[in-house]
């Protein structure tokens, strides 16, 4: 079973992402900020990380940088949740090592299609 880490400081978004992925048969862990996510990522080996950008404590860009620097996450797909209105965030994310992005708002089907795309 593929393991996915969902990171978002908004509980409802996190629940929606996590619930959708679980329903599709993935194993999901949740974190409310970048720091929690990094702690979880070091304690587990996830096959995919989906993270919001704007979060307290440690933002998504920093999280992606930190994850990419870990051997275990060198090639793991890291997706960021962005809004259409922030092209520079996309650039920043790409520079940090993000694999790609999911544009908010998205619906469950789009989320699953994207997860399947990178998890095969």
């Amino acid at each position, binding site marked *: *079973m593929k393991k996915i880490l969902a990171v978002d*400081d*908004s*509980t*409802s*978004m996190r*629940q*929606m992402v*996590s*619930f*959708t992925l*679980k*329903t*599709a048969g993935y194993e999901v862990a949740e974190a409310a900020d970048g720091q929690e996510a990094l702690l979880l990522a070091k304690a587990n080996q996830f096959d995919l990380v989906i993270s*919001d950008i*704007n*979060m*307290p404590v440690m933002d998504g860009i920093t999280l992606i940088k930190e994850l*990419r620097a870990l*051997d*275990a*996450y*060198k*090639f*793991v*797909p*890291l997706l960021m*949740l962005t*809004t259409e*209105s*922030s*092209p*520079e965030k996309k*650039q920043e994310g*790409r520079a940090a*090592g*993000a*694999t*790609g*992005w999911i544009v*908010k*708002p*998205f*619906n*469950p*089907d789009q989320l*699953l299609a994207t997860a*399947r*795309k*990178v*998890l*095969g």
Partner: protein
Amino acid sequence: MDIDLSQFSQVFFEESLEGLDIMESELLEINIDNLNHESINTIFRAAHSIKGGSATFGFNQVANFTHLLETLLDDIRDGKRQLSALHVDMLLQSVDILRAMIDALMNDSEYQSEQLQSLSAQFEQQLAQQPTSEQSEQLLEANTQESEAQETNTQETSTEEKAQLDAADTQATLWQIRFVPGVDILRCGNDPSYMFTELQQLGKYHIKLNDVSYPGFDDFDPEVCSLQWTITLLTDSPLDRLKEVFEWVEDECQLDYLTLERNPEQEATWFSQQPSQTAEANNNDQATEQLDLGATETSNANTDGIAEFDFSQAVAEAFNFDDEITSSLNDAIEPSAPIKEPSAKLSKPSAQQEQASTAPANNSLLAEVADLTVIQAIDADNPTQATSTNDGAAKQTSTATKQAVTKTSESSSTIRVGINKVDQLINMVGELIITQAMLGQIGQQETIDDDMMLDLRMGLEQLSNHTRELQESVMKIRMLPISFAFNRFPRLIHDISKQLGKKVDLVFNGEETELDKTVMEKIVDPLVHLVRNALDHGIEMPEVRRAQGKSEMGTISLNAYHRGGAIIIEIIDDGAGLNTKKIRAIAEQKQLISASDNLADDEINQLIFHPGFTTADEVSDLSGRGVGMDVVKRNITDLNGTINLQSQSGQGCKITINLPLTLAILDGQLVRIGEHIYVVPLVAIHESLQVTANQVNQLGNNQEVIHLREEFIPLVRIYQQFNHAPDAKQPQDGIVMIVDNNDKKVGLLVDELLSQQQVVIKNLEDNYTKIAGVSGATILGDGTVALIIDVNSLAQLAGIGVNKDHAA
């Protein structure tokens, strides 16, 4: 997939209101001349979350409005705009408007106000004013980052797009995509094979590796992508859809999209559906690939299945050129057509790269390069194999059960409350106000005489009564009749009994019994499991029942009733009962017990709660009795509940679940032992008394009993079990509390009884582990922690009435 997003709405509303509170308090503290960057960030994040959530859950009015706020805040955050007093004022107004909007959404009503129009207009106007020039420069920079190739590309494609528009949608277009990935593409976790898989799903697909030079063995860097491809695709998807496939990497790759003239002959070779074990397959760059288009298993096999083979090993050994690679691949996998494409050179990963993360990337690339028939071979072999290689089938089953049982914890979090409960609350608040007024009057007196003092005491007593009643009523709001859980069973029984050819009558008793919503949500799945078991393994086939002189129609009863502070749920069937002999045999076989163990039937039957125990010869569609029973038991134990099972061969089976009414609150009796304070659940207490020395008797092996009226009640000296230093070392020096211990009684010796109060239960196991004799913890009025005593486990600790609990 059909996921109802409305279940998350309530959480979204709650967190949005919280976010608005935060925004408001931050805005009120802002100092325009000395901006605190973190507080701007906080405000931005709140607006951003509300926008994201509202757009996702379809609250467009909120989303559109917060978008304005977000844009402005984003500029301020990036230093592109100066925050003005006007902005602060506008943002504060926005907070009010958003609150009203969310209130309206929560009440299913429409929000309309002129203020919204005018404020939106004001934001638009502010945003229309050019921010500082810094921003435009930044944008320019971002644009110039696009490579020239990209730009010429865009020009080319714009003409193609026109062509695309002219063609009718149903007309498939033949595209040729030249894809030259950037060398660092793998370093961002991107993998060309994802993109190929996605393209395959858009139409007929053919891929060919381009002839380019590769680095030699010594220079080869497995993290660098030095391959490039030409993909031919016959699809009716528009160009935009094709571009979307490469959207994440378009900035760092060269991508040319060309439309080709339709050419049936060529297409036949490109998109041949023949298996490739034919002679023609030896043709140079002709398709040896042959894919089961659009099947997701294919891609699974691609990433997982292929990774099973030690390609790097095979390739490293054969490291040479095409044919040898091919032969070693063929040895490694399946016979397939030789590959005439120049292949990637793969090195054996060095030790530090043995992170395995390089392997999938390269393997899947190689798979693309090599021969896609291979994938099909694996796929045809066992489509699910690829996904389950990591966990054995057995493990999968158990996770499936676990999933099924934990699923409900994520139900929606709204609650419908009967109007009578609300009325009751309002009445209480009314009384509370009267009491408060009376106390207020006393408080204004200069001096307090004796009469006043009496009034004061009476007032305070009333206040504490009101508070308790109010708390109970508030707790009741969370209580729902158990019929919410029972309602699903008629349908379930109907479907399954039909499937099995059994006849069953389902009887409910006490479905109006109320319990806490959270407890209910967590108990539903275990109940489903137990009812299915009763039907699947309990109730016999009609002819069997007839032969045994029973009525053909079996009965399953679900009963619920309150007892003390607990709810009891019974699942009773009049079927065959458990096969105790078989359970014993399996338990011995699994070495849970030994053949010499002398156990009562009841004790043997409890073994089905042991993890991993199953009596199903084959795991049927409906789980074997025993499969998942450990999970059921664990779920109930997690709720601080118990589950018991009684079975009579040929007569049926009765399962009794005992659960607390609520997880959150408990009526407690505070007691003291030395300097330690503990909470004993009030429901468990029969009486507390001082005993005399001659009421205390010794039974054999160190067991003390209290002789009370006609009973002999085992005594537990808590200080001994918990290793504390007490005031009262002897029963006659302290207080003995007579409490329930699983339908029996036990006496607990404590130094002193303190107050009785309702306590909020906190979990100890979140950050620590389970402690014998303790069920949880609570926080007292002074902020200190007190532990809550678990009578059953304390009695066990003291060695009283120990049933061999094999399911420990």
